């Protein structure tokens, strides 16, 4: 294993070197950074040319310049590097200083998009596999093929028009903004149909599902209208209570099964603690920073796990109970935070920089806006929501197809037949036997997908004018500015190689049948 890892790392470095050489030569030989100066009519033309030659070391032949560049990269990647250089851009900025803020922006976007895509894709894919060849399955297949064929710039234009401008108009013009009756009826019918297709079963059961889901949707929409949700959103004690109760039941049912009383009790205790915290922590939230929230989040998860541990101390199934409690803890803290963000919404909307039009179409933060952690949080969300959606659609389709195929394949295995034969419940079979084994090949897919997401960020960042790495690459490419292009390439290539490497390692760890040699 150790020699395999070492060899893989060496091969990766070699790959990186060759790829960077090709890229460097390709760009260096085709670009003439002096062209614009040669044709310029500035009186100090010769001096400018000489200065640029010195800045970009153009007097050195490209292969040698590449060596110098590699030397600079090596000093950056070496630990305790005090001198780090990735060369200068044409304007004379150091790429090593331009890169980190751009990276932060892009990585945030790609991380959010891929995590959401994985979760949504796996859930939807599993449901389609469980309801194979149902109308829901066929519909989802169609949608995912459609998403495959949809370039992200098309989605981005639509999102900007309807998601941002349309939504802003809706919020600003309506006084107070009300969802119209047509929308309520439409959404109710759609939600009822989708849920009845997902749940399936006899026509009677479908009808019941249709009624319940439709009624719940209609109630939620009417509630939003009545409470002026778009201007003063809040969950409030009642809704929060309902959500927590649903979470307890849902999480227990999925992770342990409702028959497992210990898991239900543990999740219930966690829910009650969370509900109490909701009332007691509001004062602390008002003065919180991002770090306070992080610590609170960690504490919440630790407490949940401890509760699970305590409840299951004298019984079997420790793992399941702890898992149920932990996941419940996560969701409950999430809801409590959502509620607090909602409380900060009116003051965010009232800010003169926002001026009642919250959904942003460009940049990664509102210029000149400053607020507490809640305000900036909302600001970030409003800026990153649309780019993230436009990025995750393709990945979502990808994961849906993959999870569906994976689960169907696992279902065909003998151990699933064994599990069925010994009379395990469907929940146990799906969640404990099939789900985990389905996830193993997913590691490889995620690595490949993150590579293409990083490439796709080029377009998304362009459309939404986000100053990320893609924008840096784009601007560099427009003037054929070598060093920023190579800086971008370096980050993309290292991430791609690293993710592939991690995926292979994980695969070997997760699936003992895979031997690395």
């Amino acid at each position, binding site marked *: 294993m150790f020699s395999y890892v070492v060899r893989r790392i060496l*091969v990766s470095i070699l790959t990186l070197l060759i790829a960077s050489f090709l890229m460097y030569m390709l760009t260096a030989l085709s670009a003439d950074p002096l062209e614009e100066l040669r044709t310029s009519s500035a009186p100090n033309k010769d001096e400018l040319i000489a200065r640029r030659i010195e800045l970009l070391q153009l007097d050195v032949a490209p292969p040698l310049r590449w060596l110098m560049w590699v030397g600079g990269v090596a000093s950056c990647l070496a630990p305790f590097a005090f001198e780090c250089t990735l060369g200068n851009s044409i304007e004379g900025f150091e790429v090593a200083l331009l890169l980190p803020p751009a990276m932060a922006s892009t990585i945030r976007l790609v991380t959010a998009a891929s995590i959401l895509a994985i979760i949504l894709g796996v859930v939807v894919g599993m449901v389609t596999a469980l309801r*194979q060849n149902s109308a829901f399955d066929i519909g989802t297949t169609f949608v995912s*093929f*459609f998403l*495959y*064929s949809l*370039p992200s710039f098309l989605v981005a234009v639509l999102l900007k028009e309807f998601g941002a401008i349309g939504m802003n108009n809706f919020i600003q013009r309506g006084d107070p903004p009300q969802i119209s009756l047509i929308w309520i009826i439409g959404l109710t019918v759609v939600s009822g149909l989708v849920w009845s297709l997902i749940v399936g079963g006899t026509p009677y059961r479908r009808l019941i599902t249709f009624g319940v889901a439709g009624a719940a949707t209609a109630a939620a929409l009417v509630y939003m209208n009545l409470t002026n949700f778009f201007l003063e959103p809040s969950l409030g004690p009642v809704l929060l209570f309902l959500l927590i109760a649903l979470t307890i039941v849902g999480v227990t049912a999925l992770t342990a099964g409702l028959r497992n009383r210990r898991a239900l009790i543990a999740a219930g205790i966690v829910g009650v603690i969370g509900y109490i915290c909701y009332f007691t922590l509001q004062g602390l939230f008002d003065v919180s920073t991002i770090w306070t929230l992080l610590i609170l989040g960690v504490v919440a998860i630790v407490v949940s796990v401890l509760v699970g541990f305590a409840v299951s101390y004298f019984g079997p199934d420790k793992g399941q109970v702890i898992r149920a409690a932990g996941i419940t803890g996560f969701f409950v803290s999430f809801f409590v935070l959502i509620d607090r963000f909602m409380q900060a919404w009116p003051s965010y909307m009232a800010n003169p920089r926002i001026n009642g039009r919250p959904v942003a179409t460009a940049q990664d933060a509102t210029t000149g806006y400053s607020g507490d952690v809640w305000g900036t949080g909302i600001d970030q969300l409003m800026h990153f929501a649309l780019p993230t959606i436009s990025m995750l659609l393709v990945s979502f389709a990808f994961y849906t197809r993959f999870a569906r195929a994976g689960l*169907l394949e696992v279902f065909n295995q003998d151990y699933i037949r064994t599990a069925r034969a010994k009379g395990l419940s469907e929940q146990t079979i799906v969640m404990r036997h099939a789900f985990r084994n389905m996830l193993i090949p997913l590691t490889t897919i995620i690595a490949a997908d993150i*590579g293409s997401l990083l490439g*796709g960020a080029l377009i998304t960042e362009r459309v939404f004018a986000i100053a990320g790495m893609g924008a840096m690459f784009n601007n560099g490419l427009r003037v054929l500015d070598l060093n920023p292009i190579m800086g971008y390439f370096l980050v993309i290539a290292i991430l791609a190689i690293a993710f592939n490497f991690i995926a292979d390692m994980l695969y070997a760890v997760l699936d003992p049948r895979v031997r690395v040699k």
Partner: protein
Amino acid sequence: MTDKTKSDKSVKAEVKSENQWTLIAKRFFSNPLAMGSLVVFVGIWLFSVVMVGLGPIPGIWDLNYSTPYTQVAPNGAPVAEHPFGQTTIGQDYFAMTMRGVQNSYFVMIVIGGLGTIVGTVIGALAGYYRGWVDSFLMRMTDVFIVIPALVVGAVIGRISGGLGIYLLAICLGLVTWMGIARLVRGEFLTLREREFVDAARIAGATDRRIIFKHILPNAVGVVIVASTLLAASAILLETSLSYLGYGILPPEVSLGRLISDNQSAFSNRPWLYWWPALFIVVPALAINFVGDGLREAFDPRQKRFSRRRTKELPESA
């Protein structure tokens, strides 16, 4: 297949192999979605050829894609003379879109064809010879995989921008073969261990003959499916590059370029967005469905398996 090849195999095997291809064709033709998609896919191309012609051959649409005409309707709205409307300077948007469709198809076919050929050859050599050939070729593939195709494409497109659509398509084809190479290599690694390969070798067949006449026909299903999917992604690659401004440059027309030029006019002249968008999405969708239909035709196990599963599931649920 030539007569020479047929003599390699017994009569029985020959009949069988013919049957297999007929079966595949039958399965594909009986798939309404795939057939419909194929008709749409070819139909769009034929429509554009009939309308604006192909190369020097004129079509029945007499307006040019580059000439600015006088604005007929206010705001360049669609009218009978200009069914897709007009751009701000008065070009006929229908002619432009059709020209864009042809360019899109051209780039797609070149990328799909070139990527398939290069990928198949590299994958076949790596999988057949194994050893250092395999290591070398696969490391080379890794080098190309490291960089997203869009990024290489952007650099190449930016550089070759002045060189026109032919060179662009060829360059893009040379950086999109990696997926197929890996796939073909995997197929070859398993197929080369089969008895018929040993038999061919004992009969004295050369390596080239074994690779191209014995193993490749057995791997062709995988290749065809992968190349249709590559073609689908090629449409998106070209339009995305053109959207970024590195692909097909004016005066030549690209659908991606049309979108990026007109996206700010979306709210008051939406047709400038919808028509090119339609002609990007529909061919890509159609060829994706064709690829899926081919996959099912080549590998019917999945479908049969799924039918059995549906019967099983409701009982156990």
